[in-house]
């Protein structure tokens, strides 16, 4: 197959001719732009790129891309994407899902696509609500969320997408915010570079049914004190003055937020991020404001062979295999 890139494609070249139909102000617009920009920067071939989605607001995504796209059924994008990669492992496949699609109706498939380590970028738009069906609680909605199905406030504990992904055995787990385009592109680029299932949770604001639910850490004024952007090999520091950080709690398998210069805390006390440390990733993934910052970036990245590599290692079709020979590779007899 010949791949032709006539000239460097621009982000707008990755946009389809279809009118984008998300609500005004939806975080999905920002994510769409960021992904189009990422693809342009990575110089991917549109004909080798496929977006597969399930059902929900986020899953309309493929219609707005000029690549190949498949808007499937609720929760099932991982299965479709796995089959697609079995048919052609050379394709560059993105799975677009949401908190309802990926963690509720499609939760089972998400677990298994991650444990199999199929080489996909799985991007989960988490807005902690069902948008397309008009505002019911989702599996990531916080306790007390009032919705048409929980008029007195929701009572079930939300699950953590990052904890689910790590628990399922994902080898790449990252987190970003819809409107922080620069950082989101960095995260998506790292996800794309990772061979295997790359799981990216994006905090996505739903201005209609769950507006500003992430306000506590996305508000620009407070962001420095409420967001921690991890980098492999760099200390886990944050804060307006860069003097806040995360350290191991003495005498416990836990972490605490500290301020350098207070209570005898020095720079050396601050943990250094190791993206191959799954235990650390698990700890960082559960931290939430106000006690902690929201930890963003590549929490975990420790590649192993992808599913496709393992499938290929099991052998390939032979060129000169005779069906006539094989079908007779059993007891036969001849009637004269």
């Amino acid at each position: 197959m010949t791949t032709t890139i006539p000239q460097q494609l621009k982000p707008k070249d990755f946009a389809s001719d279809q009118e984008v139909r998300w609500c005004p102000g939806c975080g999905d617009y920002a994510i769409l732009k960021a992904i189009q920009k990422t693809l342009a920067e990575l110089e991917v071939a549109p004909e080798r790129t496929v977006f597969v989605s399930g059902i929900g607001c986020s899953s309309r995504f493929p219609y707005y891309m000029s690549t190949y796209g498949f808007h499937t059924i609720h929760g099932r994008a991982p299965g479709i994407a796995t089959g697609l990669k079995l048919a052609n492992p050379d394709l560059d496949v993105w799975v677009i899902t949401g908190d309802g699609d990926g963690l509720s109706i499609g939760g089972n498939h998400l677990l298994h696509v991650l444990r199999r380590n199929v080489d996909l970028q799985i991007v989960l738009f988490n807005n902690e609500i069902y948008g397309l069906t008009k505002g019911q609680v989702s599996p990531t909605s916080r306790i007390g969320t009032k919705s048409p199905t929980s008029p007195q406030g929701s009572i079930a504990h939300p699950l953590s997408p990052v904890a689910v992904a790590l628990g399922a055995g994902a080898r790449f787990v990252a987190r970003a915010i819809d409107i922080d385009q620069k950082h989101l592109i960095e995260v998506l680029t790292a996800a794309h570079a990772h061979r295997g299932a790359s799981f990216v949770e994006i905090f996505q604001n739903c201005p209609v049914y769950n507006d500003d639910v992430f306000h506590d850490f996305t508000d620009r004024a407070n962001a420095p004190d409420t967001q921690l952007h991890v980098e492999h090999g760099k200390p886990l520091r944050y804060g307006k003055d860069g003097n806040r950080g995360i350290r191991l709690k003495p005498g416990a398998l836990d972490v605490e937020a500290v301020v350098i210069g207070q209570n005898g805390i020095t720079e050396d006390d601050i943990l250094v991020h190791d993206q191959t440390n799954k235990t650390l990733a698990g700890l960082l993934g559960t931290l939430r404001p106000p006690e902690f910052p929201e930890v963003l970036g590549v929490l975990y990245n420790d590649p192993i062979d992808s599913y496709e590599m393992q499938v290929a290692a099991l052998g390939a079709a032979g060129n000169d295999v005779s069906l006539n020979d094989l079908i007779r590779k059993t007891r036969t007899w001849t009637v004269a």
Partner: protein
Amino acid sequence: MSTTVPKTTDPSGSQQAREIRESVVVRFAGDSGDGMQMTGSQFTIETALAGLDLTTFPDYPAEIRAPVGTTFGVSAFQIHFGSVDVKTAGDEVDVLIAMNPAALKVSLANLSLGGTIVADTGSFSERNLLKAGYDANPLEDDTLAPYQVIPLDITRLTMSAVEGFGLSKKEALRCRNMWALGLMLWMYDRDLTATTAWLTKKFASRETLAQSNNAALIAGHAYGETAELSGNLVGYRVKDADLPPGQYRTITGTEAIVWGLVSGLRSAGLERLVFGSYPITPASPVLHALAKMRELGVYTFQAEDEIAAICSAIGASYGGALGVTSSSGPGIALKTEAIGLAVSVELPLVILNVQRAGPSTGLPTKTEQSDLFQAVYGRNGDTPVAVLAAATSIDCFDVAREAVRLATKYMTPVILLSDGYLANAAEPWLIPDLDALEDWPARQRTDPEGFQPFEHDPETLARPWAVPGTPGLMHRIGGIEKEQGSGHISYDSANHQAMTDLRVAKIANIANDIPEQDVALGDRTGTLALVGWGSTFGPINKAVEQARERGQSVSHIHLRYLNPFPANLASLLDGFEKILVPEMNAGQLVTMLRSRYLVPAKGLNKVTGQPFKISDVASAIDAALE
């Protein structure tokens, strides 16, 4: 390995006179752990190697190891073999090998009056009799008076045959089945060589087991020889079948489907077959068999559930491979929404349903044909798919190929109906030359000029198969209604009408691309037509054959194509005064025929988990002609 069987010689060279029979039904019955399936399979191979026609019926419980000695733990293997055209596994059993009281109790109902019972007296202990629900030992009272009983202490005879090999008691007892097999091989004048070779291979890692099992086999065989002299046993000889010349192998429906799919892949000119499946009785063996076929381009995927299984197949077809999924009724129910997606996005897909008795979990190991409505109608929306059914184990090969042809040519899901009986039933198969079969290359679009993803071919009404990776054909598909041509999301009412009409017409149009319906047996007009589908072929055909020999005006019509029906079916049915539809369900095809053609068809319905008997159908023919 290959053996040439001269058709007229007596391979045993036995001096004793043997009673000549046209066909015989033998049933091996024992506990789930007694190795009856293995014994039956080996007897089948010896029978096939002797050049006879045959049909088998493995009949086993759903539990892997049900409590020992109970009636619900009985596992049986029935084989009907003969010199005549053998079409069923046999209405009545001629010879029953009962390894314990429970096996006797369960199998007695199907034993012909005057039939032979070989019973292992060593297992007829008070405890085992009680477990089987016998108050008294049936070998010692009048219970078995209508039959010819051969009480043999197979347990003791086996133990003494394997003495000296140093086996544990448990291991020694597990050789009982080989003793019984040896006896049966003697009874039907069979050679032991193939079985001895098989035992050597099977127990290659434990020579003692190979030797002891072989000793039991030889002891059983020798017992027949010596006992015959004392007049207790009568040997039978079944004449060779009049089979067309050529190379044969035995094949089950499962194996035939696997080979049909692989052969279809070649004929379609595709490189990969992606088989997404999830374990379920009785469909799993298809997945097992295909998992060993990577060298033929088969990629199997054991998914996390039935839904992921079919979705992987759809994704594979989207990616340009042949996507196939399989299951049985409950699993097909779970796949329903995804079948609708495949219809909506118009991708090729083969869905195999190895039917079992329902509803819900039903009787997992028992056969039934009750998923016809599910296949033809069971989806939300107007969602037509092509539906085919295999009539015999061998027919599974052709029908699987046909499913691949229709799926790829018409860009549609095709449901292929088999059932638990066909899956396991073996027949001798004159192996075709697979290289000489017709090719029908699938077309995948590469030309970007004027490309529209949902522009339909005027002849087939299929849309182009445009595979990701192809430059210039980037497009988006999905389950939302698509605008004809562009494939863009469309909520336009006239467009939805047109697309619905198109999906219906596309499947209906397949009727012009399939053979006209003919009778399987009999005249094309007459008093009574029996219309069947699927695995009821054998008993219907045999019953019609016998009725015609008696001078009754009866014909047999057997449908492979259930959606769409063949174009001439209405006129064919018109030629008969009466229509009788035997089905292993509560009346599904009969309802479809009545609603479609407004014919006064009547049903003959049986859902006992067992195939029809010829006599069931024969009685219904008599009643219909009264």
